[in-house]
C-alpha cells in the first residue's frame, strides 16, 4: 500500500470570492481520520461556503483541497460515492414517503438490490423511523426529518460525512439524540465534519475550527483552545450587575464583558498582571459591592476572545 495521508481533509490557502465579497479567506484545514470535527462560527462566517468547496459544489477561487486523497474539484465525481452530505435545509422529497426516499437514495448510489433492502431496514431501525416508513416526508417533525436526512446521507456507508448545520431546526432532546448517533458513527471509523453555531455542540467535537468573517481564527480540541486562550477570565457576582458593568466599562484594559444573569464574565488580556486586583479596585472606586474570582476559560470565552481580537485587528 502506498503511503496515505493521515488526514481525511487537507486544504491550504482555500479562498472563495463572490465578486468583490471574500466569503472564505485563505483557510488552512487538516481533519484527521475518525474524528468529529466542528466548524464554529456565526451566520455568514463562511462555514457553508467552505463545506460546499470541500464537496466540490463550489469551486475555490484559489487554494487546493484534497479529500480522502482525491483532488477537489478535479476528481470530485469519484469522491461522491464515498462522501455523504447533509444540507442545511431538508432536501429530500416532501411528497415521497420515508421508505421511498431511502429507496431512491439507495438506487442513486446504485447499491445492489438485495443489499439495498437490508441497508434500508437497518437504517430505519437505527434511526427509529420504522413506524414512519409509509409517512410522507413533508409531514414529519423536525427531528424525524433530520433523522431521515442523516439516514439518507449515510445509506452508502460513506467514509466522510459533511453536515451543514444539521441541528438548526431541532429541539434540544433531539439534538442530544442526534449527537449520540454521530458519536457511534465516529466510533465505527466515519470522519464527520459538522458546522454549528451552538457552543454546547462545539464543545462535544473532538476538534474544532472557529471561523469568523471567512477566516479561520483558531483551531484545536476544545481543551487546547481554552488553555491557549490569550485572556484571563474573571467572574464578577454582584447584586447590581448593571452598575458593576457600568463601572468596569471605564477600565481600558478590559477586553470584553458578558452578562450571565447576576454574573459578569470579564475578559482581560493575559499580559496584564494582577487582573483580579484591577477589577476589585475599579469596582471599589465606583462603590459597587461584588464578589470577584478568577475562573477557567470555557469555549464561549475562547470564541469571544478570538473573534473580538480578530475584529480589532481588522479595524487597526
Amino acid at each position, binding site marked *: 500500500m502506498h503511503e496515505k495521508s493521515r488526514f481525511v481533509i487537507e486544504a491550504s490557502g482555500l479562498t472563495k470570492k*463572490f465578486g468583490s465579497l471574500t466569503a472564505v479567506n485563505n483557510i488552512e484545514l487538516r481533519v484527521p481520520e475518525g474524528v468529529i470535527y466542528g466548524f464554529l462560527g456565526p451566520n455568514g462566517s463562511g462555514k457553508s461556503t467552505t463545506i*460546499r468547496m470541500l*464537496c*466540490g*459544489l*463550489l*469551486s475555490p477561487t484559489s487554494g487546493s483541497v484534497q479529500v480522502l486523497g482525491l483532488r477537489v*474539484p478535479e476528481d470530485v*465525481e469519484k469522491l*461522491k*460515492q464515498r*462522501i455523504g*452530505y447533509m*444540507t442545511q*435545509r*431538508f*432536501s*429530500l*422529497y*416532501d*411528497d*415521497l414517503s420515508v421508505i*421511498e426516499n431511502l429507496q*431512491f*437514495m439507495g*438506487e*442513486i*448510489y*446504485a447499491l445492489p438490490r438485495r443489499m439495498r433492502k437490508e441497508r434500508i431496514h437497518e437504517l430505519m431501525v437505527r434511526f427509529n423511523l420504522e413506524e414512519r416508513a409509509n409517512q410522507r416526508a413533508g409531514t414529519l417533525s423536525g427531528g424525524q426529518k433530520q433523522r431521515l436526512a442523516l439516514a*439518507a446521507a449515510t445509506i452508502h456507508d460513506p467514509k466522510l460525512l459533511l453536515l451543514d448545520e444539521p441541528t438548526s431546526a431541532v429541539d434540544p432532546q433531539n439534538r442530544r439524540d442526534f449527537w449520540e448517533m454521530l458519536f457511534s458513527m465516529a466510533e465505527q471509523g466515519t470522519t464527520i465534519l459538522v458546522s454549528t453555531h451552538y457552543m454546547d455542540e462545539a464543545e462535544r467535537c473532538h476538534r474544532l475550527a472557529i471561523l469568523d468573517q471567512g477566516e479561520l481564527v483558531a483551531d484545536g480540541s476544545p481543551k487546547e483552545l481554552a488553555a491557549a486562550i490569550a485572556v484571563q477570565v474573571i467572574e464578577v457576582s454582584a447584586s447590581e450587575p448593571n452598575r458593576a458593568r457600568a463601572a468596569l466599562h471605564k477600565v481600558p484594559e478590559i477586553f470584553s464583558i458578558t452578562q450571565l444573569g447576576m454574573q459578569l464574565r470579564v475578559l482581560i488580556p493575559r499580559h496584564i498582571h494582577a487582573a483580579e486586583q484591577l477589577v476589585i479596585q475599579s469596582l471599589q472606586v465606583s462603590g459597587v459591592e461584588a464578589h470577584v474570582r478568577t475562573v477557567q476559560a470555557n469555549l464561549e470565552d475562547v470564541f469571544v476572545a478570538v473573534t473580538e481580537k480578530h475584529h480589532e485587528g481588522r479595524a487597526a
Partner: protein
Amino acid sequence: MKSLTRLFAIMHKELLQILRDRLTFGMIVGVPLLQLTLFGFAINTDVRNLRAGVADEANTSLSREMIADMSSSQVVDFQYQVGSPLELGQLLDAGLISVGLHIPPDFDRRVQQNAGQAAQLLVDGTDPVIQGVARQLMTIPVSFDSQASARSVPLLELRNFYNPERRSAINVVPGLIGVILTMTMVLFTGLAIVRERERGNLELLINTPIKRTELMLGKILPYVVIGLIQVTIILLLGRFLFQVPIRGSLLDVFIVVLVFIATNLSLGLLISTAAQTQFQAMQIAFFFFLPSILLSGFMFPFHGMPLPAQYLAEILPLTHFVRLIRGVMLRGADLNLMLTDILALLLFLGVTLTMATLRFSKRLD
C-alpha cells in the same frame, strides 16, 4: 448497469411525484380536454349571424330586396331598423352592431344610372374577421332584373380540397395537438428541475454520483409517455367528437408527434437551466408560447404574414409541426415529402438538448 439503476430511480421518482401532484395530473388530462372542446366548438372561421342595423332611407322594392338578400345569406342579422346613418354610427359606437347598411333616398336612381356606389356599408374595423365578411357582402349583386342576377355565373369555380365541408374543427384540431404539447411539455420540464432547485433537492442530488445525462434523461422520459397519452386523448376526441380524419398513416402521426414532444421537452430543460424560480420558468415559457401560437400558422395563414414574421416563425418548432401534422392527418402526405420540416425539428432538438446539458452544472457557482 449502475447508470440504468440511477436512470430508473429518477424516472420512478418523477412518476410518483406526477401522480401525487393533483395540479400536474389535472393539467395532463384537463388541458387537452378543455382546449379541444373550447377550440373545437368555439373557433369558427365561418362567420354567421353578425348583429347588424339598417337605415333604409329609400324604402323601395329594390332596397327591400337587397336587405332580404343579405339577410338570407345568414351572414348578417338585421336587428336594428333606424332612420338615418347618424343613428347607425351611434349603434356602432355603442358596440351594439358590427355592420350597418345605409341605403340613401336616391338608391334606385343610382343603381339605374350605374354611376358609382349606390349604398354604404359601415363596418366595425376593430375586428379583422368582420372586414372580411363585409367584402363578402359587397359581392351580392343588385339589379332591377332579379332573374338575370340569379343566372349570373361566377368567374371562378371553387373546389375545396381536404375540407370540402369547410368545418373549422378539421383545421383546428391537428394544430391544436401542437399547441397543447407546446404548452404542457415546455412547462412540465421547465418546472421539473427548477422545482427541485427551489426546494433544495438539487443540492442533494448533485452531491451524489448521478451523471448529468442520467438526470436529464430521467426527467424527460416520463413526460414523453405523458405527451403520448395527451396526443392519444386528442386524436380520439377529435375523431369521435369532431370527425377529424387521419388520412395518413397513424405511425407517421406518432413519429411526428414523438419528435415534437422531444423538442419541447428539451426546450423546457434549457429554460430550467436559466430560470432560478418556478415563476421565472413560467414567464420564459409564456414568452415563447405566445409567438408560437400566433406565428406558427395555427391561427393565421403562414404565407399571409410579412416576410420577417415568416423568418421568425421558421425558428419556432410549432411552425414545422403544424405543417407536418396537417400534412399527415389531412392531406395524407408521405413523411418523405416533408423531410425538411422533420430535419428542422431534429436540429432544434439537438441544439437545445446540447445547450441544456452543457449549461446544467453539478456545481452551484
